[in-house]
């Protein structure tokens, strides 16, 4: 068996016994690294520039945009924090994200359990309705007319409502619940367990990985949304951080140290979050894609 370990499906070159001791240069690997590193430069470039720029003063930046700063200057961060109304916008974003994701998850779990287990008539067609959502025309205009007529324009509650729907999240939950053995439901029914208790105490603990994935995906969506706050919120006090950033950019157009500081203060925590939640995020992206 070890004789064929030397497969090159991406070269699982576990130093196999059959190999000569003298290390041969694997040109495939060299070329791979050259391509990967070249691409990494394209990815790191904008990120490094974002980290470097806030450390300079504005005159320094104007004189030499790419040079290293003479002295470590952190005033850009304070500047952005105050002038960009940062704490306020950040708090708004957190409130919108947490409230909409929590409410969405509760409604979505009950939807998904009923559809996945065929507890309601027409479960199959209901599921299709959620699957086709990706292809439908943008709901933007009638949605706006609806919110307007409900009197929820420029109202945080109306804004949060827009995020209580996430078809891909429902599809991921349904697909995951289907992998759980049906015997569990039957056991629960025999023990005379009510439906609510069944979902909360039996199903939810079993589908926690899927819930985590859907929660993280939904949260990223709300957190990053730029267009809906532009359409629905006109009062600056309601702005989430995305809209606040763009307004700040519009006002302080050429003060790149301050703008970069503001962007960095958002991007850095997101990066840390991503490093921790990577598994669920990537799992969610691929799970959402497999349904097609």
């Amino acid at each position, binding site marked *: 068996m070890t004789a064929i370990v030397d497969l090159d499906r991406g070269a699982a070159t576990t130093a196999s016994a059959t190999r000569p001791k003298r290390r041969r240069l694997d040109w*495939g690997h060299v070329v791979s690294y050259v391509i990967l590193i070249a691409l990494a430069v394209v990815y790191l470039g904008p990120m490094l520039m974002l980290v470097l720029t806030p450390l300079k003063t504005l005159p320094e930046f104007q004189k030499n945009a790419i040079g290293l700063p003479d002295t470590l200057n952190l005033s850009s961060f304070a500047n952005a924090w105050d002038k960009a109304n940062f704490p306020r916008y950040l708090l708004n974003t957190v409130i919108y994200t947490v409230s909409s994701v929590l409410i969405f998850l509760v409604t979505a779990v009950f939807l998904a359990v009923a559809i996945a287990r065929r507890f309601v008539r027409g479960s199959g067609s209901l599921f299709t309705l959620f699957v086709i*959502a990706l292809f439908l025309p943008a709901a933007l205009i*009638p949605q706006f007319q609806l919110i307007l007529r409900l009197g929820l324009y420029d109202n945080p509650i109306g804004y949060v409502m827009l995020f209580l729907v996430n078809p891909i999240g429902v599809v991921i939950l349904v697909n995951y619940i289907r992998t759980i053995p049906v015997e569990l439901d039957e056991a629960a029914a025999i023990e005379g367990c009510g439906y609510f208790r069944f979902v909360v105490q039996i199903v939810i603990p079993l589908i926690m990985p899927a819930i985590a994935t859907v929660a993280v995906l939904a949260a990223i969506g709300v957190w990053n949304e730029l267009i809906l706050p532009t359409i629905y919120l006109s009062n600056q006090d309601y702005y989430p951080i995305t809209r606040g950033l763009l307004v700040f950019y519009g006002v302080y157009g050429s003060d790149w140290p301050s703008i970069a500081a503001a962007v960095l203060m958002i991007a850095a925590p997101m990066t840390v979050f991503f490093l921790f939640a990577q598994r669920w995020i990537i799992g969610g992206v691929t799970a959402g894609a497999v349904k097609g």
Partner: protein
Amino acid sequence: MDQRFGGGFARLAPYVYLTPGLLLYFLIALGPSLATAVFSLTDATGLPNLPVHWVGLANYKEFLTLGAAARENIAAILRTLAFSVAVTVVQFTLGLLVALLLNQKLRGTKFFRTLFFLPVIFGVTVQGLMWSLFLYPIGGPLQSLLHSLGIELGYLGGQPMEAFAWVIVVQIWSNLGITMVIFLAGLTTIPSEIYEAGLIDGTNRWQRFRDITWPLLTPTVNTNLILTIIGSLQAWQLFLVLIGYKDGTQVMGYLVYATAFGATTGGTVASFRQGYAAAASMVLFAFVLVIGMTVQFLLRRREARLLG
């Protein structure tokens, strides 16, 4: 089966608990989405109290045939198609290449995968502002580099075609990670025994890719193609952050938004022609539907031929 959770009213419990989620979906997503077709036949505006009239197909007629504006609209449709083709071809090819490279036993694959996926979670605002800084035209990183090579470009403030091309670059940079991880997930489903058999037969890398990886990756190829095509046809938000509503660069998604809500700011204004914008939105939808279904049909046929 229905009696599982007791008799009488208890049987209705699943219906009761499912209702809030379903109502929200109909009210906020599905209903409005379908109502776009209805609104496209009216003269609705951005104000709630103005009367709304039926205008039949007038919006469509105006959008596609009336004077200089219609020529601009057709140009926007063609630009959307060009954007979609460019993004799809590069993002698909590069995503596949990177996934193949990272699917090898190499040091640092985890680092590269994380790095290439990271922009996905930043969202358009951070993606766009990051690149606006990177493309800073007076001594910015890219300008300095290209300047030293004797290349002078207009960057985001340059000619429309130049700015347009940069948005394509940023779009791909931002979303390559999605294509990559979907391909990586697909690659793990190919059993390694098949490669071992290929190795015994003395095949080289290219032959193994052509005869094993590519055909067996067909379902993933299809998913990625459809997702990228539809996504890029509908994409427009990076245009807003990077260059704004600039003549000669507008794509359909941005045109719909700008017509319905104003180019940069939202709000309720009578002059926002939302019925007309809904018609434009339906035109974009028609393209997404026809292109999506045609590609899907061709891919399915190919899949049936390859995997039987």
